[in-house]
C-alpha cells in the first residue's frame, strides 16, 4: 500500500476522482460506507488511507456469482477456465450463492419471466455489489430487442457498472471489462444508480387499470409482481 507503483489498478493522478465528482457531486459514494469507515470516522487521516486500502482489497479479490443465462455464459465459462483464466486477475472463483458474491456478470438475454428472478438474486447479494453487463442483450436487448418478451437491457431491472458489448463478447473483452471494474473499485468509483423502471412491487400497490383488474383473481394481493410497460421501453 505504500507507493503508487505497487497498486495494480492505480491510474494517473486524480482524473478518476474528478469524473466521479463531476457525476455524483462532491462527497462520498455511500456504496462504500462500511462499518469500518464509521468506526474510524473521528480520525479523518486514517479514514482516507483505510478506505483506499479497503477499495484496493475489494478490487483485488472479487467473488463472482456463478450465474448463467444464455449464449454469453458459454464465453463466460471459457473466461473462467483454462487459457483465459480470469483468476489471474483475482476475480475468477465463481460462487454458487449470491450471499457470497461481490460481482454479478449478467451473461445473456433477460426475458419477462426471468427479470423478477434476476432482481431477487441481485437483492440477495451483500453490499457493496457490482454488476457487469455482458453482451448486447444486457445493453439493449441486442438482436432480440424487438421481441415481445424481451426486456430491453439489464439496466431496466438492476444498475450496471460496466457494459461489455459484443454478441457474444470474446473472453478477452470480458477480462478487460472485469479489469476495468477492478480499476474503478480500487479508485473508489462506482457508477451512478440508473433509473430503473421495473421494480418488484406488491400486486396491491399497482395502479388499478385494465390489466390489473383482469388479473385480480389470478394474483394474490401480497404477491410480488413486476409490471412491464412495453410501450415505454426504449
Amino acid at each position, binding site marked *: 500500500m505504500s507507493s503508487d507503483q505497487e497498486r495494480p489498478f492505480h491510474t494517473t493522478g486524480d482524473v478518476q476522482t474528478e469524473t466521479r465528482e463531476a457525476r455524483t457531486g462532491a462527497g462520498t459514494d455511500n456504496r462504500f460506507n462500511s462499518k469500518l469507515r464509521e468506526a474510524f470516522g473521528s480520525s479523518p487521516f486514517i479514514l482516507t488511507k483505510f478506505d483506499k486500502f479497503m477499495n484496493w482489497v475489494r478490487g483485488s479479490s472479487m467473488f463472482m456469482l456463478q450465474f*448463467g*443465462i444464455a449464449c454469453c455464459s*458459454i464465453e463466460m465459462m471459457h473466461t473462467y477456465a483454462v487459457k483465459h483464466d480470469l483468476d489471474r486477475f483475482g476475480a475468477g472463483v*465463481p460462487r454458487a450463492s449470491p450471499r457470497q458474491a461481490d460481482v454479478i456478470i449478467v451473461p445473456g438475454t433477460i426475458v419477462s419471466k*426471468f427479470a423478477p428472478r434476476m432482481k*431477487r438474486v441481485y437483492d440477495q447479494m451483500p453490499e457493496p455489489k457490482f454488476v457487469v453487463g455482458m453482451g448486447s442483450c444486457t445493453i439493449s436487448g441486442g438482436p432480440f430487442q424487438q421481441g415481445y418478451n424481451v426486456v430491453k437491457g439489464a439496466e431496466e431491472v438492476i444498475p450496471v457498472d460496466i457494459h461489455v458489448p459484443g454478441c*457474444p463478447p470474446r473472453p478477452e473483452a470480458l477480462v478487460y471489462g472485469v479489469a476495468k471494474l477492478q480499476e474503478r473499485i480500487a479508485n473508489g468509483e462506482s457508477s451512478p444508480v440508473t433509473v430503473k423502471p421495473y421494480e418488484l412491487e406488491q400486486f396491491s400497490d399497482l395502479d388499478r387499470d385494465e390489466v390489473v383488474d383482469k388479473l385480480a383473481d389470478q394474483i394474490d394481493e401480497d404477491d410480488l409482481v413486476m409490471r412491464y410497460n*412495453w410501450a415505454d421501453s426504449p
Partner: protein
Amino acid sequence: MSKGESLPETTEPTTADDVAALIGDDLLDREEHVNAPGFVIRPDSVQDVLFRLRDEAGYDHLSCVSAQEYEDRYESIYHLKKFDDPTDEVSVVVPAAKDDPVSESAEPVFRTADWHEREAYDLVGIEYDDHPDLRRILLPETWQGHPLGLDYDQDRPQIVPLREHANPLQEDHEDDDGDTMFLNIGPHHPATHGVLHLETVLDGEQVIDVESDIGYLHRCEEQMAQQGTYRYQIMPYPDRWDYISAGLLNEYAYARAAEDLADIDVPEYAQVIRTMGAEMCRIASHMLAVGTFALDVYGDFTAIFMYAIRDREKMQDLLEDLTGQRLMFNYFRLGGVVWDLPEPREEFFEKVRDFLDELPEALEEYHDLISTNEILQVRTVGTGVLPPDVAKSYGATGPVARGSGIDYDLRRDDPYGYYDELDWDVCVEDGCDNYSRLLVRLREVEESAKIIEQCIDLLEDWPEDERTIQSNVPRTLRPEDDKEIYRAVEGAKGELGIYMRADGTDKPARFKIRSPCFSNLQTLPEMSNGEYVPDLIAALGSLDIVLGEVDR
C-alpha cells in the same frame, strides 16, 4: 457411408393414397407440402387418425406440431415420421374455427404432444380438447394474449408475478400425510445448465414427481425469424438457438429448409466445407456436454471440466479461423458458405490435422477420468433409465435416443450435405441409462473426427478452378404463396427441424423451430421419478439440454 444394407426392412412403402384410405371418412381435403403429402382431417378425430397412422401405417414419430393462424382459420400440423425411415413423412393438418379454435389433443397417442400443444396454445391460442394440462408453457401464466396470433398488440403492459420465494416447507406444500417436501431447483442453479426451473416433490430423498418450468429464456426466436428476410436476415439467429458452439449445425437446419423451399442448389465444394464445419461444431458441443456432465456428477470445477474446455478452445480456434467468430459464426449462406477456407490453406489443414492427431489421446484421457472411473459408473450405470418405447413416444432424438438403442440419425437416414459420400458409423448404445448417453457422445466425437478427416482430404485435393463456394442466388427470395416445408437435420442434440410457410413475400409467414432439447427434456420425469435427487441431476446432465433451444 454404412447405410442401406444395415437398415431394417420397412413394411410396404405407404403411398399417399394408402394413407388417405386409412384416414377414410375423417379426411376433409388433401394438400401438398414440399416434404410430405398433407391430409386435412376433422378436428374432432385427431386421436383416431393418429392412432391408425401410428399402429397400422407405422408413423411412430411425431416430430413436431406447428400451429398457426390464418385470416380465416387456425391450423395445427402434426408432422409424422417413421423412426425406421424418416424420409417417409406425412403432415396431418387439423383446422380449427377462427372464433372458437378447438381441436382434439394428440397427447394420448404421442406423449410428446403434451408440451407441443401447450406451446401452440401459449403462442398461437389454439385450445386442445382432452389435453391433460393445458396451460401456458413458455410465457408467464399471467400473460395476456397470444403473441404469434395475428392481432396481438405487443405494446400492451404485462404483469409477471414472482411466487417461487414461498417457503417450501409451508404446510400447503405437503400432502395429507405430511411426508413429502416440495423443492425448487433453479431457475438460477448451477446444475440446471441455464435457466431451468424444476419443481420437485420429494419423499425423503426420493423424487416422486418433477415438473420442468421452462420459458426463462424465451426470446421470441420464431418472431425474430418471421420478421427477417430469407436471404440474409434469418441466418444469424440459428446460431443463438443452440449456443453451445453448435452454430453451424443450426445454420444447416435453416439452410437446408430454406434451400429446399426456394429450390436453391449448393455447390459440392461448399457442401464439403459445410459438412466439415458442422462436425467441428458437434465435437465442440459434445465436449461441453461431457465436461458439464462430469461437473454435475462429481460436483467439481476441476480436471475434467477444464480438459473439456481445453479441447473446446482448440476447436473454437479452428472454427474462428474458418468463420471469423468463436461462437456465433453466421458462416452459411443460402446456396453455400460466405467465404472459402482461410489462406494459407495448408496451414489450416495442418492445424486441423494436428487437432485430429491429438484427439485419440485426449479421448483416452476422458475414458480414464470418466467412463472407466468406478465412481462415475456407480452414479450413472442403471440410473436415469429411458426405455426405447418411452423415448419414441416422447419424440426423443439424438444421443438421448441413440443411448436408448434407437438407431436413428438423420445424417444417415435422411442424408443431406456430403454425409452419404463419407465413411462413418452411427453410434448406438442399448443401456438406456445415463452412462449410455455419455458413451454415445464420446463415441460420436470419434466419428465426427473421421468425417472431418475425410473432408480435409477432399478439400486438399479439390481443383483450384472448381472451388465454388456459393451458387447464384437471387438477391431477394420470394417462394410461392402457401408453399410449406418441414425439414430437419441432425443437430448436436438431435433432430433440429424447421417448418416454414411462405406467403409470396420475402419473409416467412410462419417459422416454427422443432427443437430437439424441447422434446428430450420432456422425458425427464420418466427418467427420474422414483430415483434419488442426485440421480435426477445426473439424468438432467445426461440429457444435455440447452435452454436457448428449449425455450427459443
